[in-house]
């Protein structure tokens, strides 16, 4: 296959969430001597754009997004393994630890965010539902996270968001991680009051929020970033 064909097929495989085919094609691309960065931008990256747009237009749904995110994560592992350390560091979008706050099992919104972040090239560690406060901090330390993302649909789980921020602060790690929050009852005011680094209205806004926080590189310091693409 010509390099362009490999990249086109890789894009297709990522968009379709075909993990095996994606892995095969990324390895084929590496073997064909295509620059890792080109594989990321012109192959896998295009696939993620396709599936993101399909989801936004109501043509693809959560399962497709999750599978595409999984495929993208595997492809990125191979690509980074074939880059120099500096190049990999430059290309990395960031490491996100995400979970549903304690007491809350309603994770569908969080799953959309996790999948969209993965599809957009973030390394995502999903802690699942009903996650203990300390688990967020422990996992963030373990994977050297850039962002700790907490979601809830329940007002009675909101206090745990503050607890997470406080725990991370009190253990002296506040300047290591950006803390972002979201979900039904999480308002910009609440996010500001609890000392989060960012809040977003929906899953797409969250991807943009994470990109902005990664570019800013001042966890726990700057003014909170609030993104609401649906605001009047």
């Amino acid at each position: 296959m010509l390099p362009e064909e490999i990249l086109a097929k890789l894009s297709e495989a990522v968009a379709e969430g075909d993990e095996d085919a994606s892995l095969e094609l990324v390895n084929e691309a590496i073997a064909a001597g295509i620059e890792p960065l080109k594989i990321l931008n012109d192959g896998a990256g295009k696939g993620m754009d396709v599936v993101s747009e399909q989801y936004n237009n109501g043509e693809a749904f959560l399962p497709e997004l999750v599978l595409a995110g999984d495929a993208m994560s595997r492809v990125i592992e191979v690509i980074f393994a074939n880059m120099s350390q500096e190049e990999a560091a430059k290309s990395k979008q960031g490491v996100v630890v995400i979970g549903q706050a304690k007491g809350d099992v309603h994770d569908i919104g969080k799953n959309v965010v996790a999948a969209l972040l993965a599809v957009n090239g973030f390394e995502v560690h999903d802690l699942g539902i009903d996650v203990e406060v300390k688990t967020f901090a422990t996992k963030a330390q373990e994977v050297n996270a850039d962002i700790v993302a907490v979601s809830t649909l329940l007002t009675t789980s909101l206090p745990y968001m503050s607890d997470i921020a406080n725990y991370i602060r009190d253990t002296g790690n506040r300047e290591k991680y950006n803390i972002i929050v979201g979900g039904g009852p999480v308002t910009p005011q609440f996010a500001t009051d609890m000392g989060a680094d960012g809040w977003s209205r929906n899953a797409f806004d969250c991807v943009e929020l994470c990109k902005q926080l990664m570019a800013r590189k001042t966890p726990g310091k700057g003014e909170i970033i609030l993104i609401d693409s649906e605001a009047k």
Partner: protein
Amino acid sequence: MYNIKVQRLLNMLDKAYTGPIMPMKEWDTKVIPKTIKGILKKYGLTGTLDLENPINCDDDLADTFFKAGWELALELGMYCEDTERVIKITEDELLETIRDYQAYNILGEGQDQVIMKPRRPEDPYAPLVASSLGIVCSEENYIPLVQGIVKYPKLVDVLHGPTLATVFGRTIRSGTPYETLMGNYESQLKKEALWRAGRPGMACTGVAGASTEYGHLGGAPAVAGRGNVTMSLCPVELKCTFSNFHRIIQGLNYGHKLRVGAFSYIGGYAGPPEGAALACVANDLLIPTVLQSDYTSSYVYDIQLFGNCGRKAVWANSVSIQAISRNTAFMRNKIVNETAGPCTEMFMYEAAVGLMNHCVSGASKTTQPRSAGGRYTDYITPVECWWSGDVFKSCAGMTRKQANEIAKKILPKYEEKLHAPDKGLPIKECFDLQAQRPMDNYIELFNRVRNELIDLGMPLDKAFGECYMGKVSDKRRTIVL
């Protein structure tokens, strides 16, 4: 001593430990979407979403969704998150549930007792209204707010109630002793408010603020028996947890009716609106069978709109409600998730479309409202509850065709704003809690929109005749609230 539900529940719990084992991710991303897609295709339901006719009027389509939902329920069963196993049911078990299902549910006691009955599409029997949904309110407002919500017996039949922001000034954390205490506190406040409103026998449908079994455990003893209800909500369509089982067993222990629900998400695991509708039909069949509910509380929700008042969700709810209403006598509580807040035209339009749809499609009960999408503290007043009762009951007996034509006229008034809905006003800016009546700004808006919808054909003066709670101020229909 124990009724048959306990034995059946134990059988299902056994299955949660012995059913086919499956990683949750496989269930979510492969089994659910693949099976739903396959069944939609098999029954010719793919692409049946009709955005031009948001309220389905096609009986054949509803019946096909029922057949497809039946197959989905039997093929999949319910997934138990705690054991990562599938609770499969047999066709005999489903048929037995239908055979043994009660003819009605009696809720409340004495003069405040009401009867929930199965309803068919276009049924003239008025459905029940429970108010409110779990919108957060300040502790100080709780009693007067609830007192206001239940002020008019003809409009609100059952109390669900708002959610407390704090318990004795303390933040409530789910799953902690604060929540257990809140459960009891909420129940006591409700009883006080009902007594003050002169409706002490009104049924309470669970602890609104209970996000885990602890809140229910705290609250159930204070409202045991007498036709009260325990609520148990599953995390997502076709899934349950041990927390669901805990709440159900607690409910049975306290002699409660059981209201159990699971929401189907457009854009979620079930996929498109047709998939969410299909999953909702399967939910309404599986929940009484697996979780022994006296009535279900499942509906379709649109992830991208954070509500279900857009065309896709209106359609999916209409066809899924009709599928069950036409083919079983299962009773269902169907919720409209408005996104706009109190004292806005948008809220009234959203509620009007959603409730008219659920009523003509055959829902037996609703729980309302979700003012401001439930996002903000104290963004709920009794007026949204009264409006919900007004619409939901008045529409009984309308045809789906009439309702569809009216919905088509109302939807354009708000649907473009669904991504950025009007927030509205907090209670203290549009409702006088001491006088128990809305402020002039809300009264003016309420009457203006209500009259506008009457002009569009909504039979809003039908349920209460010419006299709306005995307080019609003129021959037209301006209401003195």
